[in-house]
């Protein structure tokens, strides 16, 4: 086990290409592979009393759905290739949470696809990829 790689997936096809790339890398270097999905969430949003009361339940549902619809198919496919794979789902700011996860799991390379965010959003907030490249403490590979 030489290194640990983490691939970030959302549901877009860019994530698929990142997964293909991660698969090749992980095979070559015989690395452990984490498949991570971040549910966009902030602790500073406004909500109604009813939404708050149901929040815990919704969170469980979100985590469950993320695992069954996004993470599990990818993890199963990679496992079939004979890799050591683990799926991770977290809530939070996408770039910051990926970075924190990478640190926590001792990841040496974060692989992610270039996302199709709108120009405006990209200009205002920056893309996840560029943010990670600037601040991550490990290698970051952005797959076009």
């Amino acid at each position, binding site marked *: 086990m030489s290194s640990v790689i983490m691939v970030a997936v959302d549901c877009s096809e860019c994530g698929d290409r990142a997964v293909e790339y991660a698969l090749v890398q992980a095979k070559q270097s015989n690395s452990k592979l984490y498949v991570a999905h971040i*549910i966009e*969430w902030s*602790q*500073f*949003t*406004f*909500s*109604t*009393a*009813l*939404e*708050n*009361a*149901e*929040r*815990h*339940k919704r*969170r*469980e549902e*979100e*985590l469950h759905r993320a695992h069954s619809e996004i993470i599990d198919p990818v993890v199963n496919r990679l496992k079939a290739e004979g890799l050591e794979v683990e799926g991770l789902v*977290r*809530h*939070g700011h996408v770039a910051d*949470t990926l970075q*924190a996860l990478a640190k926590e799991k001792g990841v040496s390379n974060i692989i992610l696809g270039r996302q199709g965010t709108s120009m405006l959003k990209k200009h205002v907030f920056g893309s996840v990829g560029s943010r990670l490249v600037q601040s991550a403490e490990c290698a970051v590979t952005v797959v076009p």
Partner: protein
Amino acid sequence: MSKLRVGITTLVFLFASSYAFADIGIDEKINLAIKPFADAVAGAVFSSFPVAGVQIPFVLVWLIVAATVFTFYFNFINLRAFRHGFELVRGDYHDPEAAGEVTHFQALATALSGTVGLGNIAGVAVAVSLGGPGATFWMILAGFLGMSSKFTECTLGVKYRDELPDGTVSGGPMYYLSKGLAEKGVNFAKFGKVLAVLFAIFCVGGSFGGGNMFQANQSFSQLVNVTGGDASWLADKGWLFGLIIATLVGLVIMGGIKGIARVTSKIVPFMAVTYVLAGLAIIFMNYSLVPSAIGAIIDGAFTAEGISGGVIGVLFQGFKRAAFSNEAGVGSAAIAHSAVQTNRPVTEGFVALYEPFVDTIVVCTITALVIIITGTWDPSVDPSSGVQLTSRAFESAFSWFPWILTLAVLLFAFSTMISWSYYGLKSWTYLFGENKFTDTSYKLLFLIFVVLGSSMQLGSVIDFSDAMIFAMAFPNLLGCYFLLPVVKKELNEYWDDYKSGRLVKTRVS
């Protein structure tokens, strides 16, 4: 499909009911039918005794005494934990494992959107026009003491909340009164149950009155005012306004159209900030008048010239409006705060300190300063009252502001209604059980009251609904007195951990 069907059914139902009410002048009949009962309840809750020639309602003394006792019992928690409360709201101690759950910030913002509203705009104007600038001083003092009441009830709200099997959270005075007092023995259990049921009954009443009819009524009156007063096309169309608001509220609470609620919950803080900034702008534009305004507030608090009832009268106005505005001691906010994710209930108590602070000490004081600086409070300068008075004060600096204020009033009223519909529903299902029928029947009643509130002159019913909100403070605070040691134990354990650095700080600043 089913959402649509619910929406349409609601609409048809409301049309039918409001036509029935609007046509035959049934408001008179309802007034007459309810009046004896309403007057009896209002009379009991607001029963007063004379102090230096002023009739002071007992409930006001009840609220202020409790807030003062709690402040001393917790050794000025409203000052001690002020900084730590801010750190908690800012997320300094946020547990990354709990990402995605309700944070302190979210619980506070939700509770605030239920309290910031007409009380801050209309109530302050009433206090200053009746009690003079000095009423502001007592309002601020009442807000400061009220922080300790909020601390107590919100800590209890989280400690004794119900975490239901389906993953939702339910909390509030009904739960801490029954579960908390039950820990003290068999007789206390019965006593607690009685208090909880009383609270729930009053809360349902309050949700139809102050949390609903009063909001609809006042926002309609501001809308009529801004569109031309009595000559306005809208002046005799309260039922139409009521129908529109009831439809919107109905879409949210019955149709499950969460989008409307979500949009409102985002716009309301924005409107509140706009209101505060406009107020600060007026204060800065007239900065040379600020020292004399502050002088008038302090002088007026102790020397009440020309105010009916003298100093006691001024004090009464300030305390009353502060209590109306921040609802500290009433118990309503404990329902909203209890959904927070934390395993230390007292942390939400610290956060709740900010509710009366923001509501009363910040927003109400700004309103008061604007009214005093612009001189509109003086009845010889401007004879209007309530929302209109605040509107005039802002208008004297920004001619277009009444429109913004109208929008703010409408949105505040709407979000207050959504919040109170939730408080009322929780109390209703506490009384009658949680099922589809009880749920729907409450919501339909709630919508009918929206239409009633905006289409009628409901003098005695409004008195009654104010009385219901204040009545909530009797069972709530009585139970809180008995549960003070529970809060103190939680507080001391936590404070030790905090002071000795055993708490994990996740954000270093």
